[in-house]
């Protein structure tokens, strides 16, 4: 029997020690009259080899050679092998939340270093040990603003990813918090948004760069919010922060984001990594695990989980959040990624992404009937096609390209628009191939 060590003779010895004649008798003592269920669909067991073959077969039914230009918040970045190698150490993966700090210094120091990396990247003072994903982190940031201000209204920009906006709506459905969604625009009209920041507004929530890939200067909006004692929250793309003005410098009160681009595989939607950072003055309103540096009895430096008194296992229904675990192993991966890519390497990766995106946009705009918008962007941009983008994407898939995300799926008035993301993994030839295939498909459609 795999994974169960007990042999038949040991079982008999142990039953005797427990004082029962058989397992059935033990079960009867515990369960009383409960009878064994019968299973209709659960199969009999299989060997490791057979299960591996079955799953490899399923994996093979997924696209493995598709050229990916889809982003929308989740990016196909290169992950150096060494990241998976060190994060795969089972001393990390097979341990629990570090409740016993004396034997968890590895995990704890890694969390502390991860928190530090997030602070350095965002230019904020304090970060938690991570959350489930960018969307849940965004929601938790909103709740933080509600706790800090005592107000129960949040203004969410229409240029925030619809994935996160629908998650916010879902989470707020039973809470006394009003969500105000502004109309989606490629670039925000600060004055009209500022008018929405009423005295009962807790926070204004934006994305940086926004869902259309546009890089916006949020300082005027942050300023307008601050004048009204409204907090500003952003969801940032961490890879872009290698080159962009950090959110802390811009003046955001809470910074969150999806950490997938920092060394985590796309993995069909998870596990991912939500990061959340803020200023020290708000630290006690921040949800999630936090690791702190201290000393042991002998004065030796060490790390512990701290500020735990605010958490659900102690505060129960009064806790900051119901979240129990963080995404420890994902945070470790992000730390490993940032370590091995390094200070200059991250800038280089961002530069390569940005340059390839510019190159790709030029190539695509050369195609007859393809238009663009003249807006600043990092590695993702919108093009307008002469025909419905969803149809084009379908035909591109048959040619081996995931050409981008058709915005009509989220925005009814953008049916002809395609959101194209380019990472450092796409070569010049890949990009030329994309342009050639798109031109051919558009010719078909005409």
């Amino acid at each position, binding site marked *: 029997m795999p994974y169960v060590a007990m042999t038949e003779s*040991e079982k008999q010895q142990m039953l005797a020690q*427990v004082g029962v004649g058989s397992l059935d008798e033990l079960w009867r003592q515990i369960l009383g009259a409960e009878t064994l269920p019968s299973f209709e669909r659960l199969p009999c067991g299989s060997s490791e080899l057979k299960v591996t073959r079955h799953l490899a077969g399923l994996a093979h039914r997924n696209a493995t050679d598709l050229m990916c230009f889809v982003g929308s918040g989740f990016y196909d970045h290169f992950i150096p092998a060494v990241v998976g190698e060190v994060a795969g150490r089972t001393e990390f993966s097979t341990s629990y939340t570090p409740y016993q700090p004396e034997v968890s210094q590895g995990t704890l120091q890694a969390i502390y270093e991860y928190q530090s990396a997030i602070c350095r990247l965002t230019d904020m003072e304090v970060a938690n040990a991570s959350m489930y994903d960018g969307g849940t982190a965004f929601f938790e940031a909103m709740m933080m603003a509600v706790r800090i201000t005592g107000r129960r209204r949040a203004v969410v920009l229409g240029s925030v990813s619809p994935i996160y906006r629908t998650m916010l709506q879902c989470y707020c459905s039973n809470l006394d918090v009003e969500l105000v969604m502004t109309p989606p625009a490629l670039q925000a009209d600060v004055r009209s948004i500022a008018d929405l920041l009423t005295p009962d507004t807790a926070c204004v929530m934006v994305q940086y760069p926004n869902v259309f890939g546009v890089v916006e200067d949020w300082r005027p909006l942050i300023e307008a919010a601050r004048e009204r004692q409204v907090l500003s929250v952003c969801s940032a793309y961490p890879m872009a922060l290698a080159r962009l003005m950090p959110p802390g410098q811009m003046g955001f009160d809470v910074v969150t984001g999806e950490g997938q681009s920092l060394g985590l595989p796309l993995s069909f939607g998870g596990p991912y990594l939500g990061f959340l950072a803020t200023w020290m003055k708000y630290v006690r309103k921040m949800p999630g695990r936090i690791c702190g540096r*201290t000393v042991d009895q002998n004065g030796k430096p060490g790390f512990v989980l701290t500020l735990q008194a605010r958490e659900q296992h102690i505060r129960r229904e009064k806790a900051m959040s119901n979240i129990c675990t963080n995404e420890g192993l994902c945070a470790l991966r992000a730390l490993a990624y940032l370590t091995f890519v390094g200070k200059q390497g991250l800038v280089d990766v961002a530069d390569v992404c940005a340059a390839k*995106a510019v190159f790709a946009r030029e190539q695509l705009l050369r195609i007859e009937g393809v238009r663009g918008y003249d807006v600043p962007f990092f590695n993702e941009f919108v093009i307008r096609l002469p025909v419905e983008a969803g149809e084009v994407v379908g035909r591109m898939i048959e040619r081996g390209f995931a050409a981008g995300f058709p915005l009509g*799926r989220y925005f009814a008035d953008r049916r002809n628009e395609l959101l194209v993301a380019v990472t450092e993994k796409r070569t010049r030839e890949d990009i030329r191939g994309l342009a050639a295939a798109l031109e051919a498909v558009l010719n078909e459609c005409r």
Partner: protein
Amino acid sequence: MQLIYEKSFPGRRGTSLPELDVPAGNALPPTLLRQKPAELPEVSELDGVRHFVNLSRRNVSVDTCFYPLGSCTMKYNPKFHDRIADLPGFADLHPLLPQLRHGGALTQGALAVLYETETLLCDLLGFAAFTMQPLAGAHGELTGVMMMAAYHKDRGEKRSVMLIPDSAHGTNPASAALAGFEARTIGTDANGNTDVEALRRALSKDVAGIMLTCPSTLGLFDPNIREICRCVHEAGGLVYGDGANFNALLGRVRPGDLGVDVAHVNLHKTFATPHGGGGPGAGPVGVCEKLVPYLPTSRVMKRADGSYVLEYQFPKTIGYIAPFYGNFGVIVKAYAYMLTLGRDGLRRVSDAAVLNANYLRAHLRQAYHEPFDRPCMHECVLSAKHQIKQGVHALDIAKALLDAGFHPPTIYFPLVVPEAIMIEPTETESKQTLDAFIQAMLDIARLAETDPARVKAAPRTTPVARLDETRAARSLDLASRPAAP
């Protein structure tokens, strides 16, 4: 050990990165550029590897020692699961692909994994449907209680109270609060069961339901569970089952058969996916027929031709609880686990988990106080009541175990047992390991009698001694800052 930032040297480079093969340039706004690079580590690949490998050696884990952390089910995590999750067909798959036209055909394998895992879980727990979206156990709880809220709202009922036994995990009341409920506590009776009389008195038309953990956090199977479900249903409420302890019931008891309406399971506990030092986990939620309309969207469906498709049109859904379809990389491991063990293997898991726990109980109750004298399930809850007379607390016993080479059990939980020591051996441990642990526990109990100061001085052999948590909380040092230029 030095921080990675302290090991950095200006200009040192790590790993080889993809080259620039197009003209340099960007479309970033010049006024919004970062003035100087973020102060990330600057180490060689070798120095970085040494850093992480040495960090890992400062951890204990299931793969290094016995880890009987109660309520956490620290069982062995089969290694081939990791290989499977890393297959390019799974790891490199963009989650938006099935949302593109003709994209569904390119994700049939991944959708099959989700659908088939749901199917197996439905069979195993006795439910009509499952959602794989919740990203952790507490996230599953939240999803479940949100469905309960949606159910009552849909029926035009205002039910604002959630009943929660005092032995429950702290996440239960926290999740209930986040779903807009007022948590009300139900006590535990003298036998360690939910106080049924108190429950009957608490039921009213304001009660949305109850959140039960089965077996309870005391490691006990509540013989009244069917009666509890009946009472709650009669009062118009729903029963939430916290499946954190489902390892004890695998293949033996199905929550759906007991009358539970909605329950989550922790794939990182029962289904052998790694805990990862605190995540990522996965907390799929199963529901009975009447709660199916409220499941999160999207859902994976199987067409008559055998293909899989994502469906979005569910008017009563609670919405999107996660960005996509759940922690897929975790789910695929749990699927492999269920296929490997199968119906008989899963039943043997609960057999061995329960026998191992009772075996520990049979030996340890000689030396440690046992609050409830009856057979336990997958874990046994003892207390340091005898030892505190010598000034030795549960915490001291835990630290002494570190010196004996074991990860300690959960301590001070459940809250209803003062000085609780909650031991969950799991099924994957051998009798030899259990015997060694028993010996260590008995030695510590003896030492607590003869030389309590020695117990209180533990641990001595760990990389650091007991840490100053008061200092950590008073003078907060939560991030290392770059040196001033």
